């Protein structure tokens, strides 16, 4: 194997030189809507099979689609959040193909005139760098149903609950150059969608899925032939699939082969992609404007209204956090990653030391949650309680060391920090006379060391502090201990 440790991510070392990846993503985001895109049926997840199916979804004869305006609004909102051009006239097309879980025999989508045009987003990378990824378009479309092939030895079962659920397909430009960038891009899109509430971004439930177009080239060359990896439902799989697919392509090219344009699937058990269908087998979708639906038209003022109602988005929020709370840009970018994080943070940090709050949240809370395998929403510590903890530290009630003990207890018992401090008697001792008593004891117990110190062995000062702290069971205020000890040992 080649030594890849010095390679930039997204680069692959071949015999003939370094290969660069070119990646474009199509993200399918399910709109958080109670009902489907063209029917009144419920769009909820996890119902019994075929419960959420209207006559329209089942494509009964003579049934007609009627656009769900809420979904249109979400698409426009998303377009605005992606800094994209909103097309005030767009058209629904039929994408025709036969499949058992596609009742109409066509998917209603948008082909030549999507609701949202070009835009761009800023993506934060792990090394603190930023990069801009272009958005090609966003369009509205219906989801298909689900075929179940494992319910019967010879038959396939069809569940139409998902049929007709509203999706936004967000297509990036081929601006992505590494699997990590792709991951960061998806994270950013997901974060934006959650901020504006257009999609819950839940990848496990399939609310957010991505198709990845991957090709490789030597730096400066034209784009190579691409393969599309379908239906990836986690950021980890996206990163793995792109890496493995790019390596596959490099191996072929290095051996003098050519890449066949095809659709591929990612096998999560092997970590590799395999062919699903070649270009020759590709469907001819026979797109044409859906005559059952009028073009989607809206006024500029309607778009403006939506724009004015947009919540603060991660990029501007990040700047504001740095300014208002004095935290680092790096911490801010972690906090704005998820709307839940930033809401939590702002509640906890309200009226308190912002920097300290950010540290505790990012290092301690995220670490503890990860250790206990809990999601953020499952956190036993509420923003209110974290805020109280910060308050207790800042006003000297407890030391940082004690605070960690209190924090651990909060994770276990969900109790408030003041309750824990009181129960366990952990208040910091700052009273001079109390501490002087402890100091006197330490001096009398260690007369020999005192002499050494007084004869010039300054390093021993730390030893005395440690002894006093130990004696106080960690409750003595280290600042006061320091001050009093210095005076005493003059």
């Amino acid at each position, binding site marked *: 194997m080649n030594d890849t440790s010095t390679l930039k991510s997204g680069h692959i070392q071949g015999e003939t030189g370094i290969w660069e990846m070119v990646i474009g993503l199509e993200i399918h985001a399910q709109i958080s809507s109670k009902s489907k895109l063209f029917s009144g049926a419920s769009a909820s997840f996890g119902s019994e099979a075929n419960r959420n199916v209207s006559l329209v979804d089942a494509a009964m004869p003579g*049934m007609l689609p009627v656009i769900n305006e809420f979904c249109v609004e979400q698409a426009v909102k998303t377009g605005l959040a992606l800094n994209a051009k909103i097309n005030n006239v767009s058209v629904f097309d039929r994408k*025709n193909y036969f499949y*058992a879980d596609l009742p109409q*025999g066509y998917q209603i989508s948008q082909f030549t005139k999507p609701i949202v045009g070009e835009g761009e987003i800023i993506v934060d990378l792990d090394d603190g760098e930023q990069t801009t990824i272009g958005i090609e378009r966003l369009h509205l479309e219906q989801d298909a149903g689900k075929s179940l092939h494992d319910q019967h030895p010879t038959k396939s079962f069809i569940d139409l609950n998902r049929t007709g659920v509203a999706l936004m397909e967000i297509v990036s430009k081929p601006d992505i150059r590494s699997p990590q960038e792709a991951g960061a891009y998806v994270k950013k899109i997901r974060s934006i969608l959650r901020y504006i509430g257009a999609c819950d971004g839940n990848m496990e439930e399939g609310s957010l899925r991505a198709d990845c177009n991957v090709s490789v080239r030597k730096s400066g060359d034209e784009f190579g032939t691409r393969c599309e990896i379908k239906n990836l439902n986690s950021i980890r799989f996206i990163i793995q699939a792109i890496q493995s697919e790019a390596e596959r392509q490099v191996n072929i090219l290095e051996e003098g082969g050519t890449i066949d344009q095809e659709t591929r699937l990612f096998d999560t058990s092997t970590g590799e992609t395999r062919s699903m269908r070649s270009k020759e087998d590709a469907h001819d979708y026979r797109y*044409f404007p859906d005559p*059952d639906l009028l073009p989607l038209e809206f006024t500029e003022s309607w778009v403006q209204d939506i724009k004015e109602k947009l919540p603060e988005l991660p990029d501007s929020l990040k700047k504001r956090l740095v300014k208002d709370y004095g935290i680092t840009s790096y911490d801010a970018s972690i906090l704005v990653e998820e709307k839940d994080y930033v809401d939590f943070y702002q509640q906890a940090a309200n009226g308190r030391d912002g920097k300290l709050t950010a540290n505790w949240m990012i290092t301690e809370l995220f670490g503890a949650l990860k250790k206990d395998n809990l999601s953020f929403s499952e956190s036993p510590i509420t923003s209110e309680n974290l805020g109280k903890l910060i308050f207790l530290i800042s006003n000297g009630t407890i030391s940082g060391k004690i605070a960690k003990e209190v924090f651990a207890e909060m994770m276990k018992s969900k109790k408030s920090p003041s309750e824990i401090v009181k129960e366990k008697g952990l208040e910091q001792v700052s009273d001079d006379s109390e501490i002087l008593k402890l100091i006197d004891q330490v001096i009398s117990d260690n007369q020999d060391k005192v002499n050494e110190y007084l004869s010039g062995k300054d390093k021993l000062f730390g030893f005395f502090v440690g002894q006093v702290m130990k004696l106080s069971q960690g409750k003595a205020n280290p600042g006061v201990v320091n001050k009093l000890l210095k005076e005493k040992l003059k």
Partner: protein
Amino acid sequence: MSELLDLNLVEASKALKNKKISSLELTKAYLKSISNTSSLGAYLEIVEDKAIRMAKESDKKLFDGTARPLEGIPIGIKDMFCTKDIKTTASSKILENFIPTYESTVTQNLWNDGAVILGKLSCDEFAMGSSNETAAKGNVINPWLKNKKMSPGGSSGGSAAAVAARSALAATGTDTGGSIRQPAAFCGITGLKPTYGRCSRWGIVAFSSSLDQAGPLTRTVSDAALMLNSMAGYDQKDSTSANLKMPDLMDYLDKGIKGKKIGIPKEYTQDGISEDIGKFYEKSIDWLRDEGAEIIPVSLPHTKYALPAYYIIAPAEASSNLARYDGVRYGARQEASSLDEMYELTRGNGFGDEVKRRIMIGTYVLSSGYYDAYYLKAQKVRRLIKEDFENVYKKVDFILTPSTPTTSFELGKKQDPLTMYLNDIFTVPASLAGLPGISLPVGLDKSGLPIGIQLIANSFDEPGLISTARVLEMSAGFNFIADGAAK
């Protein structure tokens, strides 16, 4: 009995409201005539019990003075309309046992206004045809020249035959390229295709969504007005339905046409028209002039491209609309060992030749590499045809044309599909432009077959169309009854 059948819709309605007759006796008379004329094959399904039940309910309302506009009127419904709990097949084998759980908006409007259903009427399979010969259960026979077995036209052949044979007081039809007007002309009755968007398409089996439009087939223009009053209306379940209130058409029956301008398109008077039709076309022009209309020669220059454009657009939409008949959820399924094979067998056995032909044409014209040359070009032609009409309507109020180039033809005389398509040459342009058109009988040809004349109005001018048609109807004084009609 005969007296009951002699009443047209408006007369019957008046007699019902004056309690001269009851809906039950009227309905029974029609049920009887359905059985007397059963050899015509107009009905696919007769719902006698339901008809009797509805008639009795109507009689109650007539008795207690709460009668609605169509109270107690027995009508037939083209099998393209989904009717709740009544088999709806679109005359296709693929839907042979399909019973909808829902009622189309147009038929629901009719029941809401008190109409009584007699049964479902045959038509060309999925409304694709001009002779009613593509129906899975076999053709319908035109009640005119009964012994010669003439075509009732199509696709609403069952509807036209039933009204002409007096086995329904009125019927619903659907018109995509002439499917109401051409059979009305062949059967000597009135057929009205409203403006696209006037009647909801919800619950009507779709053939070509941008063209399909429901309308009435009736004995007279006033009957058509009364029927359309009930059928039309905005429906939020159909995104293409027009949110416009239609005035009560009965108010427009006797408005006259003094000072109105009637356009005579030169493109409609050229070759291919039978001599008798040409003669009655001339007569119709004279009648309208005599009633005070101004006759103005006009040109619709793109007319000759209408038929080719239609036979690209309609099959293209049909190929997609009919994809849902796949055997997966409803309808006849042919079991097979793979999904693709199941599709092939189900659709191969379920659709007739004409439907298959149009699905293939439609699939072809939408295919990549052919889309621009066919579908896109046809859409451009459609726009030009629309503009032709828009230009003409700056100068005239209505356009007068023959409904068909020939009168009815004998059934079973194998015609090639292209000759058959020519039947719609005068009706297709208005369909492509979405305009309202009406065909009414003005006379008989030498062999004794009815001749239909078409009036085309501007968008949403059904009121004007009714006024003008009524004048022509009075002038023509067509009062013949088909020899095959129930007596």
